[in-house]
């Protein structure tokens, strides 16, 4: 068990524990702050998986954007005295069926994938390759995604202003 394994289990434990607290916490502001730790843990996992650019994007977009937006929404719509929300569990049986089916799918996929057999794949910096792919092979997807984001932001602004 080398140092990378220890760091991996550390980040995994942080991610799973804080994700558990996100869904079980009774105070919605506490949930939002536990979500912060989840995002940091996921970013650490990305770095360990050799996806450095995605990790930085995760930190910038999720922690800097989405989490701030969520906190903004929570604090704007909730009176601080009445932050107690109910986190009951509804519809356990359909959820259990869906989760078991999805786990079966995931496990069969895991068993049928041809994994790389080398113990430690080499880490190459991913930013340049991702950029080249984005403007050559996936240029149309990239442009479409830009248009979707623009329309979504315009729609959000006009809906919130009304």
């Amino acid at each position, binding site marked *: 068990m080398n140092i990378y394994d220890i760091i991996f289990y550390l980040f995994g434990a942080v991610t799973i524990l804080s994700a558990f607290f996100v869904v079980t916490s009774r105070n919605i502001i506490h949930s939002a702050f536990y979500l912060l730790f989840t995002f940091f843990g996921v970013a650490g996992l990305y770095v360990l998986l050799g996806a450095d650019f995605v990790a930085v994007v995760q930190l910038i977009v*999720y922690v800097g954007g989405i989490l701030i937006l969520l906190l903004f929404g929570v604090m704007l*719509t909730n009176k601080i005295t009445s932050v107690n929300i109910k986190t009951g569990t509804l519809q356990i049986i359909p959820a259990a069926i869906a989760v078991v089916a999805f786990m079966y799918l995931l496990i069969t996929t895991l068993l049928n994938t041809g994994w790389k057999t080398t113990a430690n794949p080499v880490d190459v910096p991913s930013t340049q390759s991702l950029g080249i792919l984005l403007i050559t092979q996936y240029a149309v997807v990239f442009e479409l995604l830009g248009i979707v984001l623009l329309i979504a932001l315009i729609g959000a602004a006009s809906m919130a202003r009304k």
Partner: protein
Amino acid sequence: MVLMGIELILNSANINFIAFARYGNFGFQGQLIALFVIVLAAAEAAIALAIVLNIYKTFSNINVDEIDNLKD
């Protein structure tokens, strides 16, 4: 609350994509799809928060269990 759940699910899907991209034989496409998912999550969060603000303005309440009419 529902929004946070959605973000968690999208994050877990992203971890899967990147893990398969690292240890499978798929090249960089998994990381690319993870980036696309992050962009879509940002768009979804912006729209959903606008909707939540409007709901709060209309009902003075954001508990999804108690909002049950489309029009007042």
